[in-house]
């Protein structure tokens, strides 16, 4: 009897391992497929590829729209990161350090742009901007992305703020530092990890956004995801795979770089 039980345990262990391995493969597989496709010499998809080449990467340079899309996305995401990081840090300070009426409600309300449907955000901003006569697409994209990325920064900065000891700041103040100096010399270095994580999230979420952007984009303000979307619908050739591979390399590099500043657990908020 006892050994039959042990077999059952081993079976369970096997099944759990199998699900974990399959689940992780499910997550990674599409990424590998894109990379392999981008290295494929032929225009149709072959797996495994017969011969490798980098010609699709060179081909990106011929397709001005990808480069333009990249530039627009970079511009929008950079400005959005500055806006939402600044607003988010200040907002988190207010929410963590001060008590005021309606704080609980405000906490959840300021988070809502992440969870509420992106299409609703996109549609309401579209009608709002056009009823105000705001037709500068880049500006609209920046405002729209800032709205959906501020909550990430508030979340990561607030998480760090809760933890650290306030006495350091008080000591600095007692020693005669003014609030601004205290903030830059003491508070900011202490909440550095939260700020970096939040800013990175804001940048990536803005750079990658599609569902809000599609409502706010215009002929001269097409972000990279919008360009990829149009390309996908009408002419999906391996140049797209090369673009996606570059994005994958970029993200991987960012995550590896991030690990120098904080643990990944800290980054995703499960430490």
């Amino acid at each position: 009897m006892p050994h039959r039980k042990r077999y059952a345990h081993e079976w369970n262990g096997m099944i759990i391992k199998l699900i974990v391995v399959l689940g992780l493969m499910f997550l990674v597989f599409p990424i590998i497929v894109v990379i392999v496709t981008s290295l494929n010499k032929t225009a149709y998809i072959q797996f495994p590829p017969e011969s490798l080449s980098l010609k699709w990467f060179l081909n990106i340079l011929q397709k001005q729209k990808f480069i333009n899309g990249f530039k627009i996305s970079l511009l929008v995401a950079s400005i959005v990161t500055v806006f939402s990081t600044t607003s988010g840090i200040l907002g988190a300070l207010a929410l963590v350090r001060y008590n005021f009426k309606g704080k609980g409600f405000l906490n959840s309300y300021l988070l809502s742009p992440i969870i509420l449907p992106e299409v609703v955000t996109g549609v309401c901003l579209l009608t709002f901007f056009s009823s105000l006569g705001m037709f500068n697409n880049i500006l609209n994209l920046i405002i729209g992305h800032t709205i959906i990325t501020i909550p990430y920064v508030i979340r990561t900065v607030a998480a760090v703020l809760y933890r650290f000891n306030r006495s350091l700041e008080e000591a600095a103040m007692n020693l005669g530092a003014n609030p601004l100096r205290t903030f830059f010399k003491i508070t900011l270095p202490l909440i550095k990890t939260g700020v970096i994580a939040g800013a990175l999230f804001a940048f990536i979420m803005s750079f990658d956004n599609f569902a809000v952007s599609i409502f706010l984009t215009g002929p001269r303000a097409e972000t990279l995801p919008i360009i990829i979307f149009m390309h996908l619908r009408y002419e999906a050739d391996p140049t797209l795979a090369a673009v996606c591979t570059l994005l994958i390399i970029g993200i991987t590099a960012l995550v590896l770089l991030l690990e120098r500043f904080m643990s990944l657990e800290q980054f995703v908020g499960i430490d």
Partner: protein
Amino acid sequence: MICLSGFLMDLQESKAVPIQRSLRRRLKKLTPLGLLGPTFFFIILIYTGALISLFVFSFYRYMPSGETIMERAFILDHYIRFLSDPYYLNILWTTTKFSLIITGITLLMGYTISYTMVRSESRSFKRLILMVVLISSLVAVLARIYSWMIILGEEGLLNNSLVLLGIISNARRIQFLGKSYGVVIGLSHILLPFMIFTMAGVLRRIDRSVEEAAQSLGANKVQTFLKVTLPLSMPAIASGCLLVYTLGISAFAVPLLLGGPSDRMISNYIYDEFLYVGNFPFGSAMAFILLFISLFIILGQFKVLQSKKLGGKLDAS
């Protein structure tokens, strides 16, 4: 992204540090307002303003021949139309159905991965799982959709492999794309990391010694899991499922690109209503129906997290 439930909890549980006594108390009262200024500008002034104006539009009268498309009014016609026409109810059903299926799939895979990750003794194994899940979740959504098109297409990787292995004949390739499979696979792929991270945030708080106690009292692993671990995991499961379900019903890009005409979800119809049909009031009403459903679920999540706090005596942290 990612551990949203953790965030909700942190903010809920925190009691602000009392303001230090100061002569300039009155000034201090205004400080939080000043600090929140930029956030208020974006989220209260613009976002809320936009939401309210959309809500107002949803009661307007549609005037296709008029100059402004809609006329100021207060009618409930658009909501009634949506909720009484089987065509639109069917859209709601498709949306719900996909979201439920995807929640189920990601729960099964996500719970196993999340639990293994949280409980793993090996740092490097933990780091590997975290790295894989994190990178795959940060890779551009459209890049991942594109990849699934390569894999699932009629001339795609999966069909080619099946033909090569002799499982299907060349003439009878399976249409994965433009069918529900595509939507289910693509959305599961995008939402699985959310499930994993959200659950990990709650699961890591389960005290391991409770499980060990059960085992030392003679329970086997299966019994321990069913009687101890699973009940303690309930808040994690609930918050993960609620988050994935909410994100699932608002899916837009995946049904658009990987699904067929009958797999389109409510977000796709909202987009069409605004960009092609031009019935803004009806589109606004649809948007608000979706918004209300999401809000309802989010409120559910709050309840779950609160009840977890009350019953969380076993909580180690």
